[in-house]
């Protein structure tokens, strides 16, 4: 079984999101994933990093975010670590876009997108390090970009 790991460290600023997407895309393409799967990885990783920048680090760009892309025969994994505020998944529920629009609010959509697009979304905190793990199986039964409903796992325990 082959396994390769590629890492990237970025400052906690949204100005680096395009770099993160390019990083993920390059290795996913090299691993011969489909265009739909590659789009899914880019969006899911973008959403995870955006949440870290905005919520874990509260917009403070002086911190860093560590990413690792792990490519195995059957799965594509992105592991993202930060040392900011831990994300609590307990309160998560599917966003009601009509309710959000009525309140002119624009947030709360990223986690839902990640869960729709990836086969596994897991949050863990160990000590002061938070880790989100995103996994897409190469031969998953569904591609959420095309409207499927993959299973998600999450662990909101801080």
């Amino acid at each position, binding site marked *: 079984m082959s396994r390769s790991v590629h890492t990237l460290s970025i400052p906690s*600023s*949204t*100005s680096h*999101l*395009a770099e993160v*997407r390019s990083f993920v895309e390059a290795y996913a393409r090299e691993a011969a994933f489909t*265009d*739909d799967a590659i*789009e899914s990885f*880019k*969006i899911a990783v*973008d*959403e995870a990093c*955006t949440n870290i*920048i*905005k919520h874990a680090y509260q917009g403070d760009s002086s911190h860093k975010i560590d990413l690792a892309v792990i490519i195995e025969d059957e799965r594509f994994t992105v592991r993202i670590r930060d040392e900011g505020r831990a994300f609590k998944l307990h309160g998560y529920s599917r*966003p009601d*876009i*009509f309710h*959000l*629009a*009525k309140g*002119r*609010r*624009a*947030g709360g*959509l*990223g986690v*839902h*997108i990640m869960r*729709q*697009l990836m086969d596994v979304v897991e949050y863990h905190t160990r000590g002061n390090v938070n880790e989100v793990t995103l996994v897409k199986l190469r031969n998953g039964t569904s591609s*959420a*970009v*095309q*409207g499927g409903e993959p299973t998600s796992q999450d662990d909101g325990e801080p």
Partner: protein
Amino acid sequence: MSNFSVGFRTNNHIQILDLKGELDAHTASELEAALQKCQDDEHNLIVVNGENLQYISSAGLGVFMAYIEEVREQGGDIKIAALQPKVYNVFDLLGFPMLFDIVNTEEEAVHKFESASEA
């Protein structure tokens, strides 16, 4: 350097916004500024042309969501046209086709506004 831009055009009384590039949490403020400018200029018939929009994340979707009610309360609408399939898919993931009028072409969006004003 920003990899996103908004171009402004008008077609009679309809404001057309041409989106180009990648719309994420970094560039969403540019779309916000564009929609705010429409508000300030009292343009509430808005067509967003997404033909050259290569990417959107929830930050971009959130901007549309934050403005749609206000625009509709003023008797207008934000109609979204010509999205590439990969971008449309992201709108679809969150159920946006239920909240927004999303059409295949700019012409179709303009026609819908014109038909409504004649009615």
